[in-house]
C-alpha cells in the first residue's frame, strides 16, 4: 500500500456512525472513497452541502453541485443545501463532530499551520481557520516529512498558524499520534519502524507508551 493510501485508509476508521464530518482539500477529500456505501454519516462541505457523498458518475454529474474541493459530487438521501452563512454557522456553532485537514506543519501544542507560507504561498484562508478553530475534533492527515525529508511534526510551528491548540490527532504514513496535555503520544505505528527511527524523523518529542510495543 502506498504511503498516501495508508494514511487515507487509516483515517477512514476515524469516522464513527452518526458523525457529521468535514473533509478538507487534499488527502482528506479522498477518505470518502474508503467509507461503506451505507454508512450512517453526513459529510459537510463549506459551500453549503450536508450529506455530500462520493464523486458522481459522469452521466449523473450536476454542474451546479460541487464539493468544496471542486469535484462534482453525489449526495445521500437526507441531504440539505444551504447558503454559506448557514454553512459556517454550523461550523462555528460546533455542530460538526470531526474535521480532517491537511497541514504544512503541526506541533506538540496541537497547533496547525496550513494556509500560508510567507513569500511563497498565500492563496487565501478559505474555510480552514474556522474549521480548525471550531470543530470539536481535528484530525490532521499529512505525510510525516515534507518532500525534502524535513520533519512536519515540530516542537513549535514556524509558519503563521491556522489555529492554535486545535489538533486532536495526527495521522501520517508512519504513525497515529495524539495531542495530549502531556505531549504527543504515539498510539499506533502504521509501518514497521523503531521508536528511535520514528523519533529521528520527528522534531517534536514523542511519547511511546508501553502498550504501543505490545500491540
Amino acid at each position, binding site marked *: 500500500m502506498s504511503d498516501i493510501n495508508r494514511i487515507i485508509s487509516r483515517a477512514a476508521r476515524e469516522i464513527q456512525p452518526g458523525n457529521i464530518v468535514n473533509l478538507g482539500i487534499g488527502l482528506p*477529500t479522498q477518505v470518502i472513497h474508503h467509507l461503506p456505501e451505507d454508512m450512517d454519516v453526513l459529510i459537510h*462541505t*463549506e*459551500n*453549503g*452541502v450536508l450529506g455530500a457523498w462520493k*464523486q458522481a458518475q*459522469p452521466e449523473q*454529474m*450536476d*454542474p*451546479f*453541485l*460541487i*464539493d*468544496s*474541493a*471542486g*469535484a*462534482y459530487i453525489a449526495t445521500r438521501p437526507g441531504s440539505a*443545501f*444551504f*447558503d*454559506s*452563512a448557514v*454553512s*459556517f*454557522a454550523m*461550523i*462555528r456553532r460546533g455542530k460538526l463532530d470531526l474535521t480532517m485537514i491537511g497541514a504544512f506543519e503541526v506541533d506538540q501544542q496541537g497547533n496547525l499551520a496550513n494556509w500560508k507560507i510567507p513569500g511563497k504561498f*498565500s*492563496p*487565501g*484562508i*478559505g*474555510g*480552514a*481557520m*474556522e474549521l480548525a*478553530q*471550531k470543530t470539536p475534533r481535528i484530525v490532521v492527515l499529512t505525510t510525516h516529512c515534507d518532500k525534502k525529508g524535513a520533519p512536519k511534526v515540530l516542537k513549535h510551528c514556524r509558519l*503563521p*498558524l*491556522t*489555529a*492554535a491548540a486545535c489538533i486532536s490527532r495526527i495521522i501520517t504514513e508512519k504513525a497515529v499520534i495524539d495531542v495530549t496535555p502531556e505531549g504527543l503520544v504515539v498510539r499506533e505505528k502504521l509501518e514497521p519502524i523503531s521508536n528511535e527511527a520514528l523519533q529521528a524523523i520527528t522534531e517534536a518529542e514523542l511519547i511511546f507508551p508501553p502498550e504501543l510495543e505490545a500491540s
Partner: protein
Amino acid sequence: MNKQQTIEQAIAQIPDGASIMVGGFGSPGTPFALIDELLKQGQKHLTLIKNDANEMGIGISKLIENGQVDKLVSTHIGLNRRVIELMNEGVLEVEFHPQGIFAEKIRTAGAGSFGFLSDIGLESEITKPEDLLDWKGARYKVEMALGADFALIHAAQADTFGNLVYQGSAINFSPLMAMAANQVIVETAHCRAPGELEPACIHTPSAFVSSLVVLPALTNDYGIMEHHVRH
C-alpha cells in the same frame, strides 16, 4: 413589479469604479453571462467581491486578466495561477478573509447592521490590534459589514417580480450578496410568472432584486467543466 431588462441595460447601470459582489463558489453560482457582458462593456477600476477568482479564462478571471479590476476581496484563489501572479506582481490588490467571516460580513451588511463581534483568528496574524475590542469582560475581533454597489447573481429559477431559487451548491453566497448590495442584477434561464414558485421555497425574496435578465439558454460555461472532475 416586473424587473426584466436586457442584459445590456442591466449591466450599463454599472459605472467605472463600482464595487460588485459576484455570486458563486467555483463555477456553480457564477453569473457567467452577466460577467461576459461586463467584459464587453469594459467598465474599469472595479472592486470585485467573490469567494474565489474562478479559474483562468472563465468568469471573473476574464475581467481581472482584462485589467478591469483594481481590487479583489476574496477567501481563496488557489485554483487560479494567473490571478495569483497578478497579485504577487502588485497589479491586483487582494484582500482575504476566512470564508465564513467573508460570508458573515456580507450578511451583516445585508441585515442593515454595521459589524459583528467574532473570535475567529483572534490571535492570528489576520487580526490587527486596531480590530480588537474589549467589551463586557471578553475580547473580540470587530468584523465590519461588507456591502457593495452591485451584486451579480445567477438563479436557477426566478419569477418576473424577482423572487429567486438557487440549485444545489450554486446557492453559496448569492442570497447574502442579494441582501447586501444596493443594486442586484440577476440572470436566469428559467423565468416564471408570479405565483409559479412555491412561496415557502424562495431563497431570495423579490424585494432584494433590482434587475432581472432572462438568458435565452445557458452556454457551455454552465456545463460540466473538466477542471471540476476529480481524477
